């Protein structure tokens, strides 16, 4: 098997762009959040400082092999989603490794990092980790239901699971976007997206002030650095996934960044308005309105 080195370079470049974009985006959102709370907030470049600090910490501890591997799984999961995602429609080099599999691969690859991280954190043995993980997994089960329905609806509509095909089918103006052609599926997916991003009111997993900070409690230094890197990449990748599925994809980087920023802003906006659900509230929530919308969405096709 021959390796297309140029494509690999483009992919890494894309990864680098997304990483920086993710860090800046995070900084920006934190700042916006602070302003809404009438605080000044941290500088936009603060995530860079955190990252550099964490990677350069010298004394570190480990609780065992799985603990050590947890963040690796987590970051591999995030990067994996990025790798299998086509970024720019119509560009061979910016389609990453999306030829390896379609949207199903991406959906299942989300679990890869999640489970690996869960296992790593568990070896740390901290009760908060366990509680956070059990909450996260529980909530995730129902979050995925409306999302899956929405993805199936889109796939049926375009007769393909291939993200490239799905984006191709949405070209030609805003009225061709799936959010317009199948608003029910689109809304169901956007509601599920709230849960996927785990922002308030669905932030029971890390639940600041309650089980600070849940699964990563025991992680510090480079481990935490990896997790922060992942956060930047993963959140952007998931936003790009939503853009590809429902908002017509993107034909250039500007479009991609604008769209994904707006998509990303949606959970932030909701999170600032609504307080946290308890776990037994958040689990069934997704089986109510979002599920019904998802079902309608699938029968709309």
């Amino acid at each position, binding site marked *: 098997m021959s390796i297309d080195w140029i494509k690999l370079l483009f992919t890494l470049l894309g990864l680098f762009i997304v990483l920086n974009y993710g860090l800046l985006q995070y900084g920006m959102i934190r700042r916006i959040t602070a302003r809404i709370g009438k605080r000044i907030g941290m500088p936009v470049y603060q995530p860079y400082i955190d990252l550099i600090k964490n990677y350069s910490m010298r004394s570190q501890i480990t609780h*065992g092999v799985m603990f050590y591997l947890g963040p690796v799984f987590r970051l591999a999961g995030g990067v994996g989603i990025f790798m299998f995602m086509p970024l720019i429609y119509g560009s061979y080099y910016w389609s990453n*490794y999306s030829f390896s599999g379609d949207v199903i691969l991406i959906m299942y690859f989300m679990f890869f990092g999640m489970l690996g991280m869960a296992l790593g954190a568990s070896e740390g043995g*901290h009760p908060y980790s366990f*509680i956070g993980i059990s909450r996260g997994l529980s909530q995730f*089960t129902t979050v995925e*239901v409306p999302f*899956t329905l929405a993805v199936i609806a889109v796939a049926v509509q375009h007769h393909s699971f*291939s993200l490239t095909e799905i984006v191709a089918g949405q070209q030609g103006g805003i009225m061709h976007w799936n959010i317009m052609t199948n608003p029910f599926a689109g809304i169901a997916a956007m509601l599920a997206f709230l849960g996927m991003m785990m922002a308030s009111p669905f932030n029971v997993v890390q639940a600041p002030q309650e089980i600070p900070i849940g699964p990563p409690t025991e992680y510090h230094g*480079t481990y935490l650095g990896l997790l922060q890197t992942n956060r930047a990449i993963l959140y952007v990748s998931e936003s790009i996934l939503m853009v590809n599925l429902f908002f017509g994809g993107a034909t250039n980087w500007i479009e991609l960044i604008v769209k994904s920023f707006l998509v990303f802003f949606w959970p932030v906006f909701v999170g600032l308005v609504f307080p946290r659900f308890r776990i037994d509230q958040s*689990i069934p929530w997704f089986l109510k309105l979002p599920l019904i919308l998802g079902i309608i969405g699938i029968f709309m096709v």
Partner: protein
Amino acid sequence: MVSPVHIVSIGLITAFLLGLGKKSQQSILVLVLLIATAAMTMISGSWLIGIMTGSVQPTDVFTAGFKPPFAINLRMTMDEAVLTTMVNLFGFLTVIYLFDVLKNAGKHLLSIIVVFLIGLNVIVMTRDLFNLFVFLEITSIATAGLMIMIQDSKSISAGFKFLIASSVISGILLIGIIFAYSYIGNLNIDFMSNLSLIKGGSVAVFLVLSAIILESKQFPANGWALDMYESAHPAIGSALSAVSAPAVLFVIYKLMPIVPESWHSLIGLFGLITFTFSNFLATRQGNIRRMLGYSSIAQGGLMLTVVSMSTFFGNSFWFIILGFLLTNFFAKAGLFWLNGMVNSDDQNKWGVLRKRPVLFFLFGAFVVAIAGLPPFPTFFAKWEMIMQLANGNGWGWIVLILLGSIFEISFLFKWFGRVFHAEEEKINDIRTPWFKQVPVLLFGAALLATSYYFVEYLNFDVLFVMLPLLIVTVFFAIDFLPAFVKNLLLIASLTIYGYLIYPEIDGNVMQLVFMGVFLVGGILTLIPGFTQKGTRAGFYPFAAMTIFGLIMLVNPADNLTFFMGWEQMALGSYILILRGKKAERPAQQYMLFSAGGAYLMLAAFGLLLHFAGDTFFGHLNGMLPGGGVVFVLFALAFMLKAAAIGLHIWLPGAYSEAEDDATPLVSGVLINSGVLGLFWIATAFGPQQLFGYDIYQIMGWVGAITAIGGNMLAIYEEDMKRLIAYSSVGAMGYIIFALSMNSKLGLLIALYYMVLHFIYKTMLFMSAAGVIYRTKTRNMYEMGGLIKSMPWSFIVVLIGIITLAGMPPLAGFAGKWMFYNAVVMKGWYLQGTMVFFSGIVAFLYLYKLIASVFLGQLKDNHRKLKEAPFVYLLPQFIFVIAIMVLSVFPQVLLEPLATIIPDRIPGEALHWDGKLAMTSFGYWNAFSVMSVVIVMFAVIFGWLVYHSRKAQKVKQFNIVFAAERPFRPETTHVSYNMFAGYKKALGWLMTPLATRFWTGVSDWSMAIADKMRSWYTGNGQTYAMHLLLYAFVLYLLISGGKIL
């Protein structure tokens, strides 16, 4: 050849001689009796052999020098030869068995025994009605005499009730004989063929017939008989069951030619009602002798059905009746005799048999034989009977037989299970002198020999049936060897068998796959058995039986072979489950559900014979229009084994309570038999409808609900094995769903997942077995942090759960990916999403499984644990390698599997472009995904290693914990009720409806049986009334309310 009349004359002379003897010569008298019975046996036996070999012609003996009808004639044909041989041989063995009793009893008892035997012989041989009456009376009096061999109030009152009953019966019989004589002018049956044609003659026939039917103890006019069984000496109970009843039934057989055709089926129905209801009532019976009484009466009822319908059964008649007759003869006599040895009617006391391996084995064989499981004759007889009834559209009859059989299995195996698990300390040892053992051993051997002849007669395939049966038999014979040797031998014989069978099935991918799963699974799951010490008596024969039963399913030449393999596998696995420490109840449940499934299947085979003739159900090639009912019956039967929701309640108990190292076999391997069956019907029957509903659609929903239900139930389990067991339910739901899609891709998913589930489930159960072997507990919250001491087991579980979860890059993802494509193509979005949801729910219990056991806080008492033994790990890692290969090159498995699926199945197939799998919807390249993941993982890992190369390993409790340092792992390890929040949110989904339903069924049937039993008041007058009422009802039904 000695004239058959000398059977009688020897008996008479002996009776006189015994009268001359003195009390002091009792031993000699017993010897005389023994010799006499031996002589009688030899006479009838020589006739039997003579007629069988053709060296002697059947004959009639004329008494008093006249020909019938002017004198009495005794007939000796094949029929009489068989029955008199049975009677006399039984008499001979009874004398041996009762040696100690007879020695001390006084000479009268000896005479009574002889008279009893003479009576039965003449009843069998005579052709004269009045002579029959006389000898029935003689036998009755002798029976009453035998009843009071034990002289307690119970047996005396039972004897008295018997006399009341038999006088009522004799009255009816005598009036009938008088009528017959007045119409025909003679008393010989052979001259009465036109009796029923004469006006009023039918009344005579009715009276004679009804008297004999009453004598054969039909339900519900049989309270007197039950009391006899309950109170008589076991040897006498044995005589009632093994020889009296057949002799009376033979009389009915003799009478059938004079009975009008139109009555036959009604009598048959009455017999069947007896069979069903006696077995039903027996389910509530704890007293062994009474229970055996119920069972004997039930078998009598079944035989009455066969006898009365002998013309209907035609050529199969002999096969069927001999199957029932001989099994009942050997097994029932054997059980009564064992009862005499154990000397208790308390099921718990029977546990003492466990100290006598040979007797215990025979006990099991007798129970299994009566229950009608292979390879015993009843099994084949029942099969043939059902097939014949199906040919004649006797669906109601089949339902009754199958219901009765289920009840029969219920009480027989409850008994067996109790004996298997009775507490040692509560058992007093028993004396088993040689003269009590010899008859049991002989009859046991005879039963096995009969089974052999039945199997031989049916001409089964040598390689696929006879060889496996032989191997299983050998393992019974060598059961005294050490476990290590037997394990090695079984693995070796499976390997050699695989080598022998391979050329036969080479080229047939379907057979290769399933044979591979069963054989390789069998071999690999046996490997951990090397840790067993001692002989592990009773394990290997049944392990062999299970595995070879499974193998029989793969290449059945016909439906019977398949069914036989199925039943054999069920029996073997039942014993494997029963061997667990607390497995009595779960094993009983397993047996009941297995039997239920098997009988549904039997009914389906009957229907199939009716619809499609004698074709093997897997070879129908999509051609069975209107076979909806057949399909549903098959589907239910297989879904029972695959534990579809509602039919799953046996599974968690059975899998978790089986011995830890046997669980992988009975779960991961065996459950695929259900998949095999489902796959076969899915491909063979074509689309089917029932009442206008598409059955596949319904099955699809069942599959989806099963998937969710199984996985939901798993997440709240604290017991490691129960958790994995429930996960099997979920996986089976997934497979059922995939099969019901009835598309090329759907079937491919089902097959692929079957293989995959086999691999990871076997692996997980073995790993669990290894952990339990070390920790000595199954509760996950009592474990934690075991990754340090058992890293290899951890890796196996990790690989297993990633595969199960279907995460890329491991092999499970192939199943999920194909699944989406198939669902979208089929258009089953909602069901598909449900199954998908179940897959995510699985994450919860998978996490709980691995985190509670291997991660988190190590417990103090586990600090010195070692890794699981090598023999546990070896097969696990073979499976791990298999998963790894499949993960990178799924086409290795998927491409051959796709060739199994017939072309006529609709839908798009999976395409391959090199390593890229494609459908019209999506694509996926396992190799490429794996490469990307590996590279990415390695780079990030390298990055981490570079940055934290100086990371220090810290002690267990060195964690950030709110200014406090925890010391107790128990309070720090979060495991118990881990998903409490989930339970609060969605717990209502787990309302145990199925358990409630089945408990309700069980409770209600118990209550009804209890209520019905109160019909037997124990009052002799009531019993007499029952007899008259029975005759009256029979009359009304036969005559249709008119005068005959």
